[in-house]
């Protein structure tokens, strides 16, 4: 015989189960809805607008001299800033992970600074430094060196904004791996450089790629800081994001979305590459 309380318990349990099921559906549903409205739909819209007048118009918009110049400039700036940040990031991560020194916490905080400062402010800093009224402005002018409203200024601003990506990808990885393998290499007679290239770098290579990937995506997509220092000279100092804005403001929707679609494509490729890299990173952190 089943007592009443047992039945009540079973009913209660079933109730709790269906309640949990309901909660799960609501939470997952809300997330999907949110992602659809804010991510998937805009992404589709970018491509739909770009192709609104057909593939020919889309391709024609991309080979416009202005568009080509913007694509070239964006690639060049990304190459410079990713290159610089690869070196800076490796050095900074190495310093933080392998040595103990006073001011280390301050250094880690400073590395993160570009993330917490508005990109517009980051751009303004360079105007204050290198602009005509800036600290180095007069000196630069007298030596005929153009930084603002030219490629160096755009590269500098982009480098500043994307500085944390490589070091942030490497610091936790290198901290976890510690210095034992390096010590083993040293005691086996390896020089500092041999230790770096044969032991340290192979251990962090996926982390480096991960950092470079994110750094590159942000470098190509950066708007705020670049907008301040670029000067918007058509065909000369407009990167892809800046060109998208200009074209859009001129009601040239197909060219605007065509260029935007390239950036969206970059984002998608970055996302896929990131997922693959993350799998490798997980393998890398399981210590022998």
């Amino acid at each position, binding site marked *: 015989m089943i007592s009443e309380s047992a039945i009540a318990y079973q009913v209660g349990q079933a109730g709790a189960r269906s309640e949990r099921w309901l909660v799960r559906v609501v939470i997952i549903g809300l997330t999907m809805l949110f992602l659809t409205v804010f991510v998937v739909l805009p992404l589709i819209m970018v491509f739909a607008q770009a192709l609104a007048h057909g593939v020919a118009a889309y391709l024609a918009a991309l080979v416009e001299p202005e568009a080509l110049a913007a694509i070239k400039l964006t690639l060049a700036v990304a190459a410079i800033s990713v290159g610089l940040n690869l070196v800076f990031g490796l050095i900074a991560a190495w310093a933080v992970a392998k040595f103990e020194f006073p001011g280390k916490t301050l250094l880690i905080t400073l590395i993160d600074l570009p993330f917490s400062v508005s990109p517009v402010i980051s751009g303004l800093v360079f105007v204050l430094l290198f602009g005509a009224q800036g600290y180095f402005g007069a000196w630069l002018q007298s030596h005929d060196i153009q930084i603002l409203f030219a490629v160096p200024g755009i590269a500098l601003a982009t480098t500043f904004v994307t500085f944390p990506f490589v070091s942030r990808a490497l610091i936790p990885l290198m901290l976890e791996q510690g210095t*034992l*393998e390096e*010590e083993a290499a040293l005691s*086996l007679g390896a020089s500092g450089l041999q230790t770096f290239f044969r032991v340290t770098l192979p251990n962090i290579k996926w982390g480096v790629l991960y950092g470079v990937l994110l750094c590159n995506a942000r470098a190509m997509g950066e708007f705020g800081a670049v907008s301040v220092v670029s000067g918007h000279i058509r065909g000369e100092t407009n990167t892809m994001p800046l060109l998208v804005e200009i074209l859009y403001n001129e009601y040239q929707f197909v060219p605007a979305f065509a260029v935007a679609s390239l950036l969206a494509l970059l984002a998608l490729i970055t996302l896929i590459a990131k997922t693959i890299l993350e799998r490798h990173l997980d393998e890398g952190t399981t*210590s022998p």
Partner: protein
Amino acid sequence: MIELTNITKRFGAFAALDGVDLKIADGELLALLGPSGSGKTTLLRIIAGLDWPDGGEVSFDGENALARGAGERQVGFVFQHYALFRHMTVFENVAFGLRVKPRAIRKDEAGIRARVKELLDLVQLDWLADRYPSQLSGGQRQRIALARALATEPRILLLDEPFGALDAEVRKELRRWLRSLHEEINVTSVFVTHDQEEALEVANRVVVMDKGKIEQIGTPGDVYDYPATAFVHGFIGESVVLPVNVAEGRVWIGDQPLNITAPNVGGPSKLYVRRHDMQVGFESIGLRGAVRHVRSFGAIQRADIAVCAGGSETVIEIDTPRDHALRTGETVELHPRRYRIFAD
């Protein structure tokens, strides 16, 4: 011969090493034994060149080793957590030391292959050459780490708690194996351990350390049977300790005189007796205790015996043969076959 003279090393306010002198003879197998924080690992790392002393001298065969970095000292170092190169196969791990040599003295590829094969045979793991470290068991990893350290024919092999990360069975097996390996290749070896059994079983000579100082250096038999200090007596083997007072050569426990001698000691002291040297009821030296609790298992019975020492009471645990039955509550005579007295 490796000679350390007056080595000191501080980490902030903490003195990790405080005036350490040590001579390591060629071909010996030396254990640095001590509790954690005794400075033994720091000493090992200073010999290896992975740490630098604040003061003192290190010489290898009369040459100043402190003028050389870790890579130039020809030492083999084995880490507690193996530190194998995770992205290299077992073969490449062992070959590493051979590959990073300057071109002029580097073996050719065939020479490297032959040497690695020889070492993998030595550690009996030649069948693992193509595996990665993550695919090996702890014991296998440590043997590969040893092969890697031996590849460059170091003049001294340094092992930092080599068996510390392994489970008890593997540990015992590797211990015996290390001992026979040393007999086979006879390379001067120093290993750090906090496990007295490991030190006594494996080493030819044991250096007992505490708080950055060497307490005693001797053969395993010496440090066990003739401990030089109270610390060594307490750290190695099982000891029964009683507080005593020594006045004019006579030993008192509380207000009770004991019929034993204590040359060269005066004032408040401790009486140290190995547990197996403490007997019950054979003859009287004036040491008595009350049986509190008796447990029997196997051929022995273990008793908690309370000894009055002045105002306080010290409970000691001793083993006696089962044929000499003890009853809870009875008072027994205690007789140390051998003992040591150290001043506080």
